[in-house]
């Protein structure tokens, strides 16, 4: 049985909306992440999808403690990372790294590739000689020529820059990587190279990934489990096959319908005779994620704890299902039940 690496409980974050030029009065708030609980298992890839503004990136940044959470906890080996001071957090930083969306702009343009990659090492007082050797090793690991270590980022293509970003994230031998849309800015052929590289690295180094992307096909392909965020809440969580093929929540379904057109790239995928546009007409009226101005708690359904097989597989948060279930407090028991996932593949 796989072990939990991270236990995330009731994590919440909202950002104030301020008005006025001199006195910045708080006039409201945007709830970016709202009472989110789940576990991240050792060695898994947890995919995270949702529309823009659904809180995907904020969630990742909260877990890495890059922004302070309002409430909730992120537990690593029994230690709550939320509320740790910067000095205390430094001890854990090595184990948590991030790969950013924009490969070029996440590198320092005035430093060479070697300096960029060595930065986290020097930051953690690794001796220069050792750091230099490690940089060569890392470049080799991500498939770049160590002889190019003294070039500057602008001399590389987007895909190569993303490899450099990955090398930098791996410098301190982390256990957990937050991949914040790492392939969204890349071309299809390069995207496949980077995804394969990340998979190989995960197998070789026993890494745990939280993978954010807006392309559902990519997330489905790359992840073991998927969480679906809407308005900062988890509306569905489950094995990637189940979420993709048997979505329970209407929002997940509408996301999938919007890509169902893109799925049809495989030869012999059926749907030949349908009018080209038909899958899209369904979602013309589907809810798109608007800026959430304090979604009223009562109207927002949460994943239902029905205790049935169904709930163990994939838990939707849908009004239909949660009717009659008293409160959303039931959700806190869920993250543990999701441990069932790796075994239940045979149930279907």
């Amino acid at each position, binding site marked *: 049985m796989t072990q939990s690496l991270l236990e995330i409980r009731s994590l919440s974050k909202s950002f104030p909306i301020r008005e006025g030029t001199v006195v910045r009065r708080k006039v409201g708030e945007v709830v970016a992440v709202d009472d989110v609980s789940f576990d991240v298992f050792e060695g898994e890839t947890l995919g995270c999808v949702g529309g823009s503004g659904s809180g995907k990136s904020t969630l990742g940044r909260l877990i890495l403690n890059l922004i302070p959470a309002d409430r909730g906890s992120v537990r690593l080996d029994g230690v709550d990372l939320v509320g740790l001071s910067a000095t205390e957090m430094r001890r854990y930083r090595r184990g948590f790294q991030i790969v950013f969306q924009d490969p070029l702009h996440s590198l320092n343009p005035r430093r060479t590739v070697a300096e960029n990659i060595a930065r986290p090492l020097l930051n953690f007082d690794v001796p220069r000689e050792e750091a230099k050797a490690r940089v060569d090793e890392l470049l080799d690991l991500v498939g770049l020529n160590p002889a190019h270590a003294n070039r500057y980022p602008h001399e590389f293509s987007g895909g190569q820059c993303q490899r450099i970003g990955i090398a930098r994230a791996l410098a301190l031998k982390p256990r957990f990587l937050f991949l914040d849309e790492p392939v969204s800015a890349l071309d299809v052929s390069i995207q496949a190279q980077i995804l394969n590289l990340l998979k190989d690295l995960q197998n070789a180094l026993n890494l745990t990934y939280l993978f954010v992307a807006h392309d559902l096909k990519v997330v489905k*392909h790359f992840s073991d489990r998927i969480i679906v965020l809407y308005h900062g809440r988890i509306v569905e969580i489950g094995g990637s096959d189940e979420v993709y093929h048997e979505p329970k929540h209407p929002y997940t379904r509408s996301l999938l319908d919007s890509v169902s057109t893109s799925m049809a790239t495989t030869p012999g995928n059926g749907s030949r005779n349908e009018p080209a546009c038909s899958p*899209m007409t369904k979602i013309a009226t589907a809810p798109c994620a608007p800026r959430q101005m304090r979604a009223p708690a009562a109207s927002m359904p949460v994943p239902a704890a029905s205790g049935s097989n169904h709930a163990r597989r994939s838990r939707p948060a849908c009004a239909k299902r949660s009717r009659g279930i008293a409160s959303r407090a039931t959700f806190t028991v869920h993250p543990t039940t999701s441990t069932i996932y790796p075994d239940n593949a045979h149930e279907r």
Partner: protein
Amino acid sequence: MTEISVDSIQRDEQKPELSNDTVLSVMNLKTYFDTPAGVVKAVDDVSFELRRTDILAIVGESGSGKSVTAQSIMKLVAVPPGRHAGGRIELDSLDLLSLNEKALERVRGERISMIFQNPRAALNPSFTVAAQMVETLRHHDRSLSKGEAAKRAVTLLRAVDFPDPERVAASYPHQMSGGMCQRVGVALCMACEPEILIADEPTTALDVLVQATILLLLKRAHVERGLPIILITHDFGVVRALATRVIVMYAGKTQESGPVEAVLSYPQHPYTRALIDSVPKPDEVDRHLYQIDGQPPDLSRLPSGCSFADRCEFAMARCRTTIPELHRSPTGSTVRCHLFDDASE
């Protein structure tokens, strides 16, 4: 005139329809950029015809020349460093590339309009939507009064499914989401009832759900107004959902073109095939994706043979020495590949 022979096969195939149906024909278009590193051949001998019933998709990776092709049609390429190095673009026998700026004004927006990739950047941040639409409408029709133009703007906004067009008209671009900005972009494009619409990656910057609403608007414009569309994209999903014909570009050249069905379901060119294979399939169990190794070539230092040869698993000796010609494939598409040399002889 010697250049025309290169595309003779495609030309022959399309000649019969030229008389009745073709609204725009691009012949042997070449757009080069003079850079310190050398001449970048962004578009190198591209030919196609847009028919009245077409949604023509131009697909390719970044740097394949798809956007420059679109910009060349509208004559939006900055000169210098850009340069028109050959070929013709004809809109109903009007030679677009020979027109001066003043004559082009009557084409841009009125006869051919364009939707851009970044919807927010395409709008002026300091003016309301209404102000920008009124300006466009009155620029093209001087007889229109301000009041009439404002009314027409609201009608246009309603046509792109805004439930409250008056409110949108009074908004500034920063008050709207990316999807709303793009819908305003579509409304602006329809303002002068153009004959052709060019959509340059209209949904790339948008959320999947919003993407679908924009694609639906384009589809509707095509069906209801009979508007032919040139759709520039890198997303095969969008091509499959919308287009009727497709052109696959690589390193400034057309590699494969034909009906969507033929090209996407039975890709003939090794590049098209590899590109489609490297898109993750939801039903695939194997976690390892098919990948095309290497990088697209540097356009200022193109190899002497086929530009895809270095990354191609079927590459032969002649692929590295001679640029392949366009050939008809058994599926009805046109392919630029030496693998089809024998078939056509």
